[in-house]
């Protein structure tokens, strides 16, 4: 049943395929969803999936696959959908991606596979993400588990952090027969997938199912362990007997802007705001004990233009905010958030205030936030990032009344592992230095990947690093060779 379908399974000519419109993702109605945390995208039916899969031109070049950070064999799995072999398609994806139900939901396909799709040059690209999600959900619904039968190698690998990079390393290495033990600092597994990304984009149940899949593959998990504090990397490699360690601790610490009033009650980092909601379920207080500021009927703003900013403000809207603003100092073109998220947010009624730069949080004199003073900006010359630099328009100051402000302007490296691991080389900003193809660090047997190496990026890029690391760890465990890239030699 997992035989690859012949290319001829698609009855349409190339011309006819170009004429089939991209099948729309069924969505929960915007008016309804702004009051609930249930998922926005509802997923393709079998009908829609097969119709969409028929559009694939089955190019020889597979630019889609080449642009996938984890190298999913897209053409092959899409052909299996055309042939009606959904289980086979799922197994095909799993060869390269151990978390398909997650990436099918949160990966920015428009920057990767779909940007490479030939269809996209003339019409809309193939809905690869939607198709991936469809087969992953089908697999789950049918209770299909693809468990590779491999002989144990007797090697033990410790994975630090249960976010997207760590879970990918765990899945890939388990498939090679290595014993993997994942350490997580929080009480729940999943890293940013559980504390950061809200239910309406990625239901927690999906993460739990993917974790169960990894458990069935023999991966062990241990929560409440802060590596660097509870146990060090040296202890893992020493008395705990691990043959290799992968560090995937994530981007870590929230950045603040350094403007007056950031300590006022009602000002949150996006990490704290989202953690209270997603991990601690503070919106269900007092059924859950962790409190948060009551947002019902209040004016809330998020500062920043990334996916995290949108996750925060769309959550605020669902918690009953009266006005929900995005304050961003550049224009919409420069916003790093996914186009689909911006589109969804706008549908739901989020008020985007572009070219707006907060300069001071205002207080009621008793320590509570009452508003923010902003200046209007215009775009000047391009800066180091290639984006046009925002410049303050003189005399443009104005005040916006607010009860809650959420700061989502980025993160900086969490120092706990680096500062407790002698010889682990970091860059100027404190991120771990790792070779970009092997993910090796300056410490023998220690690999790193994801945001703790690159700074904050996306789930799929972290997974890509996890894939490279797993391949490289497997090589190291089987050959024992360890060559350091010149730049990483320990002084």
């Amino acid at each position, binding site marked *: 049943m997992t035989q690859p379908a012949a290319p001829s399974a698609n009855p349409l000519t190339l011309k006819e395929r170009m004429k089939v419109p991209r099948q729309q993702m069924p969505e929960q109605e915007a008016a309804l969803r702004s009051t609930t945390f249930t998922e926005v995208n509802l997923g393709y039916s079998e009908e829609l999936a097969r119709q969409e899969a028929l559009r694939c031109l089955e190019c020889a070049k597979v630019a889609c696959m080449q642009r996938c950070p984890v190298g999913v064999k897209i053409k092959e799995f899409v052909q299996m959908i055309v042939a009606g072999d959904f289980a086979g398609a799922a197994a095909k994806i799993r060869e390269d991606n151990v978390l398909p139900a997650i990436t099918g939901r949160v990966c920015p396909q428009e920057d990767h596979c779909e940007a490479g799709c030939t269809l996209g040059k003339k019409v809309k690209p193939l809905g690869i993400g939607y198709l991936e999600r469809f087969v992953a959900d089908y697999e789950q619904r049918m209770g299909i588990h693809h468990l590779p039968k491999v002989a144990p190698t007797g090697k033990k690998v410790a994975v630090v952090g249960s976010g997207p990079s760590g879970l990918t390393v765990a899945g890939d290495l388990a498939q090679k027969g290595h014993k993997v033990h994942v350490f997580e600092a929080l009480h729940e597994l999943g890293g940013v997938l559980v504390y950061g990304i809200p239910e309406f984009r990625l239901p927690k149940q999906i993460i739990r199912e993917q974790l169960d899949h990894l458990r069935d593959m023999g991966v062990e998990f241990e929560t409440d362990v802060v590596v660097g504090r509870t146990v060090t990397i040296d202890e893992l490699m020493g008395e705990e007997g691990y043959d290799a360690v992968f560090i995937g601790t994530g981007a*870590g*610490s929230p950045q603040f802007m350094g403007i007056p009033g950031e300590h006022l009650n009602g000002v949150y980092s996006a*990490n*704290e705001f989202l*953690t*209270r909601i997603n991990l*601690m379920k503070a919106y269900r207080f007092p059924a859950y004990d962790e*409190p948060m500021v009551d947002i019902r009927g209040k004016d809330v703003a998020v500062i920043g233009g990334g996916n995290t900013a949108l996750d925060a403000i769309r959550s605020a809207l669902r918690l009953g905010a009266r006005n929900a603003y995005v304050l961003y100092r550049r224009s919409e073109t420069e916003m790093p958030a996914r186009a689909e998220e911006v589109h969804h947010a706008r549908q739901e009624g989020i008020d985007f205030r572009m070219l707006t730069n907060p300069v001071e949080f205002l207080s009621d004199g008793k320590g509570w936030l009452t508003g923010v003073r902003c200046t209007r900006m215009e775009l000047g010359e391009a800066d180091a990032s290639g984006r046009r630099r925002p410049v303050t328009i003189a005399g443009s100051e104005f005040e916006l009344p607010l009860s809650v402000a959420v700061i989502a302007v980025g993160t900086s490296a969490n120092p706990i592992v680096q500062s407790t691991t002698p010889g682990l080389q970091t860059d100027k900003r404190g991120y771990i230095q790792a070779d970009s193809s092997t993910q090796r660090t300056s410490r023998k047997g220690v690999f790193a990947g994801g945001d703790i190496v690159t700074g904050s990026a996306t789930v799929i890029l972290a997974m890509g690093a996890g894939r490279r690391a797993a391949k490289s760890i497997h090589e190291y465990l089987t050959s024992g060779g360890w060559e350091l890239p010149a730049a990483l030699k320990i002084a």
Partner: protein
Amino acid sequence: MFRIRQAHFLAPGIKRFVIEAPRIARKHEPGQFVIVRIYEEGERIPLTIESSDPALGTISIVVQSAGKTTHLLNSMQAGDAIADVVGPLGKPSEIAKFGTVVVVGGGVGAAMAYPTAAALKRDGNRVISIIGARNKELVLLESEMRSVSDTLVVTTDDGSYGQKGFVTDRLRELIEGGTKIDLVLAVGPVVMMKAIADLTRPAGIRTVVSLNPIMIDGTGMCGGCRVLVDSKSQFACVDGPEFDAHRVNFEVLVQRNAMYREAERRSMERFVREREAREEKNGAGNDEPCTVVQGGKQ
């Protein structure tokens, strides 16, 4: 799950727990804390580690009933299990030979200052300890503190034991009496730590305080525990919890610790109501009176 091996009240509303946490016991150093979440719907709260026994694989914490979570924790017994205990977190206390060190512990702060006092004594410092409580029955760890101090002074607000007055009164006497003090370590309520900072600042005595802001993860991820030190944001969980008292903005700490006062009150009232309803149904009493203690988290 983390099993409670022993649990007993040291004073009304203040309970000491010995918890099985072998990994934490092995790594604990004085001044560090754990984050505790009691059950699935629970909040995460920071609690200072009072002592640890690596051989037995246990740590102990001293908990004062203040809000719902601490009341609930203090109703737990030996044999019960706590869902999550994470640590040891925060930077350890700086232990070195300073000379003469005054360790001030206010209320349950005495239990938190104890491991640091013991380490300072072991390193050859002259340790003068001042521990204070509202009244005699709330004085904590007196014999333990005595065993690691060259001099121990006990104060009570009402004079029911030791010297009547506040810990700051005794510290002022020491300073005014010309005792050469190289370091003051103060652990206790924010108002006490601020009063001590104000007292030692003009005297130019180096002073360290252990701060207790509201936290969630305890690993530097959320930034909720940010405190203003020298007008800059620092995270108490990774940059602290100990800071130079003369650089800390205590007003902001008080303000931020009051952020959820209303929610904490509602949560506590609901908890008391539910407990009373349960007791009425069971017809059984509870050995611990439910008193809401003013102040933030401990």
